[in-house]
């Protein structure tokens, strides 16, 4: 009798797992760091993406089908990212995936998407290796070789720097890749990298590295890290007597950066995907919508989240069916798509070809300085 009840329970449990699939909607899986060390990345992206999905649904959806966004939190950890993406694929049966911001997390999750032949669009992972994971992995942002070149060029031509030091995050694929590119480009442009130090994400003490860097008297210090550490590094750099400008990449993009670093970040520069204070009509339009909805200013990551959603919607409209291979082909054919982060074309390596901006921090605000085309 008891065995009977048990097996009945088991059957109920198993059938609970394979719930009937609702075919009246298109399921979009999103994974990102909604909490954790880089939580503002995931939150901003999510807010931008939600705006895009709502806009599409309000306009009638795709061929009469509404989009349904299913979001999972990976707490900013690669191992979690791989797990939640597997869950989105096998349990929620998503048609497409959007995520992640941090390259290490996208890299961890991409093989799962590739194996299941579910197209994945990363809104803002800039490490080249991400899309090399397979032909189902795309991105709507530029890649680090371009970003590193932009900053190396900016340091040499605009700041007239002859020497530079690098302080990189040993644990992050993004930071390591960007640092390598910057080093190579800066040297190729005639500069000398006088010091190359590292830390590990989660560190709080950078005094030793910064003191060593100060001794080499570089003209600029390139810190391709994420905002949490960059804020602390800027503070401790000033304490250690480094007065040189700090340069960085889009990992600086967070309203938390200025809260942590404060005055220590005055006169520092970083490359980014877009500028919130840009005068482009598309950007102004987006900023207004975003501010109405969330009562705050959007960052570049929110814009990229929005663009990722819009690129997907555009591909869904053109795709022959909702099956992975058809959707993949449609995304790959994206050309001259006008997004809020600029005009983009998906190239043969599934990367977006588009321009970058250089931003300057002055008087506690982030300002647009220049646009650099590929």
């Amino acid at each position, binding site marked *: 009798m008891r065995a009977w009840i048990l097996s009945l329970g088991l059957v109920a449990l198993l059938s609970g797992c394979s719930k009937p699939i609702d075919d009246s909607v298109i399921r979009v899986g999103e994974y990102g760091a909604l*909490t*954790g*060390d880089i*939580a503002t990345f995931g939150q901003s992206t999510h807010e931008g993406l939600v705006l895009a999905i709502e806009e599409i649904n309000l306009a009638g959806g795709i061929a009469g089908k509404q989009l349904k966004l299913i979001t999972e939190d990976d*707490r900013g950890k690669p191992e979690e990212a791989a797990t939640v993406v597997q869950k989105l694929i096998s349990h929620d049966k998503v048609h497409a995936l959007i995520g992640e911001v941090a390259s290490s997390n996208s890299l961890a999750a991409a093989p799962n998407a590739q194996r299941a032949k579910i197209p994945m669009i990363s809104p803002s992972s800039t490490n080249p290796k991400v899309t090399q994971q397979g032909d189902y992995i795309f991105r709507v942002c530029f890649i680090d070789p371009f970003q590193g070149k932009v900053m190396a060029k900016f340091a040499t031509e605009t700041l007239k720097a002859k020497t530079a030091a690098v302080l990189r995050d*040993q644990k992050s694929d993004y930071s390591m890749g960007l640092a390598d590119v910057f080093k190579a480009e800066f040297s190729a442009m005639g500069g000398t990298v006088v010091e190359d*130090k*590292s*830390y*590990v994400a*989660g*560190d*709080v*003490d950078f*005094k*030793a*590295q910064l*003191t*060593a860097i*100060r*001794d080499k008297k570089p003209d600029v210090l390139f810190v391709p890290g994420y905002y*949490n550490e960059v804020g*602390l590094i800027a*503070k401790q750099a*000033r*304490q*250690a*007597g480094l007065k040189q400008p700090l340069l960085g990449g889009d990992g600086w993009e967070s309203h*938390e950066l200025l*809260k*942590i670093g404060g005055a220590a970040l005055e006169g520092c520069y970083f490359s980014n995907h877009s500028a919130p204070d840009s005068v482009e009509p598309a950007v102004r339009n987006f900023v207004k919508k975003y501010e109405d909805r969330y009562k705050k200013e959007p960052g570049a990551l929110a814009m990229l989240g929005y663009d990722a959603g819009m690129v997907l919607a555009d591909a869904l409209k053109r795709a022959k069916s909702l099956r992975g291979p058809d959707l993949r082909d449609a995304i790959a054919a994206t050309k001259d798509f006008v997004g809020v982060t600029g005009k983009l074309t998906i190239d043969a390596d599934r990367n977006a070809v588009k321009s970058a901006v250089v931003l300057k921090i002055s008087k506690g605000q982030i300002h647009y300085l220049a646009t650099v085309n590929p």
Partner: protein
Amino acid sequence: MSTLLQHLINGLSLGAIYALIALGYTLVFGILRLFNFAHGDIFMAAAFAAMFVGGALTTTQAPGLIPLLLTLVFAMSVAAVLGLAVERFAYRPLRGQPRINLLIISVGVSLLLENLGQAIFGPTPRLFPELLTETTFSALADSGLLVSNLDLTVLGCSLGLMLALEWLVHRSRWGRAMRATAHSHDGARLLGIPVDTVIALTFAVGSALAAAAAVLYGMKYPRVDPLMGVIPGLKAFIAAVLGGIGNLRGAVVGGLLLGLAETLVSAYGASTWRDALAFGLLIGVLLIKPQGLLGNNRVEKV
């Protein structure tokens, strides 16, 4: 030369914090023969307490010595109460049982506090308020040797608390009772020493030291999250073992040495080796001089 001096200053100010946490470890070990792995998490809880009260204080008044002292007192009280609670509800019921049970419970308490912290505060790091406006000045004219008032505060507070602890343990009645209890619970009980109270007091004092370290740590590295106690806790454990666990002076020496060693490795080697060095030191000490640098060579009775 001045660069080396600068590294030494940076290392000392990091080491002083390790030393403060290590003191709590060693104090509890001395009296219970217990590695209290929850110590680092009490440090974390104290950092959150300090963040909330320090944030509230600095919104109404300018940063300075008074908010700093108030925050210190508040965080130390919260941690002392938490330490008492942990002792009363997790460790005391196990008294008289094999020591391995205590050790396992301490790991359990540690995980409980970490996950409670994540559940209540969320894993997103928060900003520690500015309790003291930072100013940096040259120590020697034009040498490029920089000292900040934060470093001096950290060193000063640590030194003061270490001296106070030294007095408590070696000069006061309670200290004598603590030392007697450390020597033998039964012997102390025979002499009329309230052993349970003494152990509770030890936990309160040890936790308060961790709280002081948490405030100083927060001022130096303004970032608070529920897992922030794990690494400093482990480092302090290493410092305590390095100096000789159970020995107060050993904890201070171990903490300072570890801080210096880590800073020098990051400066002249690669920071990736920093944690490896710390744990390598632990293994080395256990292999070569298991009683630690200043530990007395006691034969364990099995």
